[in-house]
């Protein structure tokens, strides 16, 4: 091995080859008296100092020219090679250590406050029936545009004077606390605090901080539930669903929607999160009613403190009444005759006349406005699209008491026997094997759909 140190080696080479001024010296193959010079694509500057090494490779000599950095500050190489590894290691350890500090199980920031409602309050939908579902992504603008259509009515909370809004904010905070420390008369604070943590972790990404269903989740289908309207689609005989029904929805999810089952949560976690959801609903509904009253000039800013307590107490009484509801224990009639009778009630204008809305048993894409002002598609009952309860008892309650939030009417005129027949038919609609042949043919008569 020979070393040529500190020589202006490239400059001399260039002087010998003026037609090809650039050479690659890092890979030069030397054999006896010849060497192979490989030209660089972009040229090389003259005056590079470096180190030349000959290495025996097989029967060749590999000649390697290693240029020194130009110029190489003293000690730089040691600095780059010596300090870099500890620095990178320290950085890696630090970041990995800090990664453990960004957990999300601690619930909300204690300084966080519930924001006052800013999106429009829906009152009534346009007269014309919708032809498509409400598009995702810009729900507030869609609802606000209802005011431009006949029959459509919305209220914009931003029209309320600033001092009234501030009074409303203060009073709501006094009554209902903050996200991290929620309050609701009749419910223990610790239960709500625990529920708030579960909600922040699992629910807030869709249902949002105030239970508005807005935020990132509004790009999903269907829209996440807005608790603030005080409306729910769960089967119930009262104005509000029972906590048991809400807990069932959380535990089982809502099939066909983005609401997944949370059956791995403990029973206490489910109870806590349901209590917190009720807290959000009561708070949101109180806020909604106060906004409507302020907008209609029924109350003034000074009345907010008194009025809010009255409204909250009234809403809470509805929830307490619903909590005492007993779910019906029914047994569906067996036999094809019961299903035939149920089919007649479903299709007959003098019976329940379900078919007037569920045209062709839901085969057609029909849209209706629901209680939140959303245009939603009526379910295809032959496919079992019962999102809000598919068990006989739930179907029974839906038919008897209707689904007010979906504008589905109640059927108080039906006798218990008729109701059971109708429930048996609706239950069997998505189970063709249970249907009598004639009824099944009628249900499958839709040319566009052959698979129930």
């Amino acid at each position, binding site marked *: 091995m020979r070393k040529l140190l500190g020589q202006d080696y490239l400059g001399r*080479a260039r002087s*010998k*080859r003026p037609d090809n001024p650039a050479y*690659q010296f*890092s*890979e*030069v*193959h*030397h054999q006896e008296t*010849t*060497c*192979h*010079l*490989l030209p*660089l694509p*972009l040229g*090389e500057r003259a005056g590079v100092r470096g180190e030349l090494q000959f290495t025996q*490779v*097989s029967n060749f000599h*590999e000649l*390697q020219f*290693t*240029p020194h*950095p130009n110029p190489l500050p003293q000690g730089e*190489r040691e600095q*780059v*090679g010596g300090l*870099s590894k500890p*620095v990178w290691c320290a*950085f890696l350890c630090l*970041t990995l250590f*800090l*990664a453990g*500090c*960004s957990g*999300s199980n601690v619930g*909300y920031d204690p300084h966080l406050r*519930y924001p006052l409602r800013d999106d429009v309050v829906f009152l009534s939908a346009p007269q014309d029936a919708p032809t498509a*579902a409400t598009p*995702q*992504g810009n729900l507030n603008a869609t609802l606000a545009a209802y005011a431009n259509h006949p029959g459509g009515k919305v209220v914009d909370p931003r029209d309320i004077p600033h001092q009234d809004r501030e009074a409303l904010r203060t009073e709501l905070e006094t009554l209902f606390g903050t996200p991290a420390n929620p309050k609701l008369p009749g419910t223990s604070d610790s239960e709500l605090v625990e529920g708030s943590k579960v909600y922040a972790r*699992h629910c*807030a*990404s*869709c249902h*949002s*901080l105030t239970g508005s269903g807005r*935020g*990132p989740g*509004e*790009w*999903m*289908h269907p829209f996440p539930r807005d608790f603030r309207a005080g409306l729910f689609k769960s089967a119930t005989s009262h104005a509000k669903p029972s906590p048991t029904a809400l807990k069932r929805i959380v535990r089982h999810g809502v099939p066909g929607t*983005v609401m*997944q*089952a*949370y*059956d*791995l*949560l403990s029973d206490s976690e489910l109870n806590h999160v349901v209590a917190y959801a009720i807290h959000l609903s009561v708070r949101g509904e109180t806020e909604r009613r106060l906004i409507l009253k302020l907008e209609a000039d029924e109350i003034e800013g000074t009345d907010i403190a008194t009025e809010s307590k009255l409204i909250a107490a009234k809403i809470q009484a509805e929830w307490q009444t619903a909590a005492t509801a007993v779910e019906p224990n029914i047994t569906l009639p067996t036999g094809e005759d019961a299903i035939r009778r149920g089919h007649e009630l479903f299709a007959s204008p003098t019976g329940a006349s379900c078919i007037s809305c569920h045209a062709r048993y839901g085969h057609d894409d029909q849209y209706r406005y629901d209680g939140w002002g959303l245009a939603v598609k009526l379910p295809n009952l032959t496919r079992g699209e019962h999102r809000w309860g598919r068990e006989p008892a739930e179907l029974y309650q839906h038919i008897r008491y209707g689904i007010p939030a979906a504008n589905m009417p109640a059927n108080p005129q039906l006798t218990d026997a008729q109701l059971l027949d109708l429930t048996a038919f609706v239950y069997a609609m998505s189970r063709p094997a249970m249907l009598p042949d004639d009824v099944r043919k009628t249900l499958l008569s839709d040319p566009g759909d052959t698979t129930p």
Partner: protein
Amino acid sequence: MMMNTVPRWLRYWSIATLVVAGLVVLLGSLITTFRVGMSDPVWPTEPWFLVSNNEVWFNEPAPGFLIEHTHRLVAWSIGIFAVVLALGAWATEPNRRLRWAGFAMLVWLLLAYLALHGEMGSLWRARKLGGGLAWPAVSGFTCLLAALGVLTVCVLSLQSRTAGRGLRVLAALGLMAVMIQGLLGGYRVFLDQLMGTQLAAIHGSFGQVTLALLTAVMVACAPRRTGDALPEAERKRLAPWAVGFVCIVVMQLIWGVWVRHMASPVAQRLHLFTAFVVSGTALTLIIRILASSTARPRYGFYAYHLIAILAVQVYLGVEAYIGKFAIVGPEAMLPPNMRSIDTTSAVIRTSHTLLGALLLVSAVALMTRLQRKPVTHVELSQSPEYPEPQVVQASAVLV
């Protein structure tokens, strides 16, 4: 003079794999932007679910559902790409026994992985609500054994010191990373009720590692030329900076993932702080490359490329930060991860994420190329395209 031990089709395949991986990252980024990762809480679903299920296609027009299932479909296809890439890479192994051992281990891993998916699907379908979780123990353990088998042949390949060993090891690791990433994506849906968005953040972070590995595979597939490597001293001077740059970019991407999924205050600060470190490291590396008479001709393109990406990325980062954290109005009262998303902010955030991934790809490509050692004559002579070199008199050089 060129040394080409990788078939041309494999080179193109590796590029296609990286392009499809970029598409997966884009779709994943859109999912996080719109928070639609749980728009279909069912997993596993068939890869062709979106196409085959007309009822879903026509009745679920929500953008979130379509994005999520397109992500699943393209992510499945990246698995196919990675499998072919790994098998193709092992086909270049000169040692016949090792080649077949590699094939056997990869096929075993693939079958075990498919069995794992199948068992997961059956367990999911058979699961009763409230019945707890059952784990695919048998297929999971088989998968683990197969992965160990693949790693063993990788070690043997490295010890054999044959040309292209790096490519084979990287391709096998890339395939395993894609498989792990697929499982993480599935469990992100499957275990959402236990882990929330934490698993989504891990899925997003590991996606960057997978992308880096596939980038390294692509670079390893490129043909070698004489003169494409730096001299030893120059390589030692630049390589640590390139490695450090990749590490910092990965860290920065992880903080970005954490910010996007959880908006954690710690992650917000670290993401901002690391942005300065990334910029500083990148500029140092770029200046060193451009100032070097030997590195500039070879890696000047990368340097200019990094400058361009960095400039746009900083701009997008500032815009994304302002759009997410520095807003006014009622939305400011909400935590950052609960604010509504309009189209403009979605485009900015997604572009920022995508460009971050592109920065990682460039950094890894530069690092991999900088790590190359000069092609020796012995290696050159193994190439079928080895020509007779130009000969000049030694006396003309060695004065």
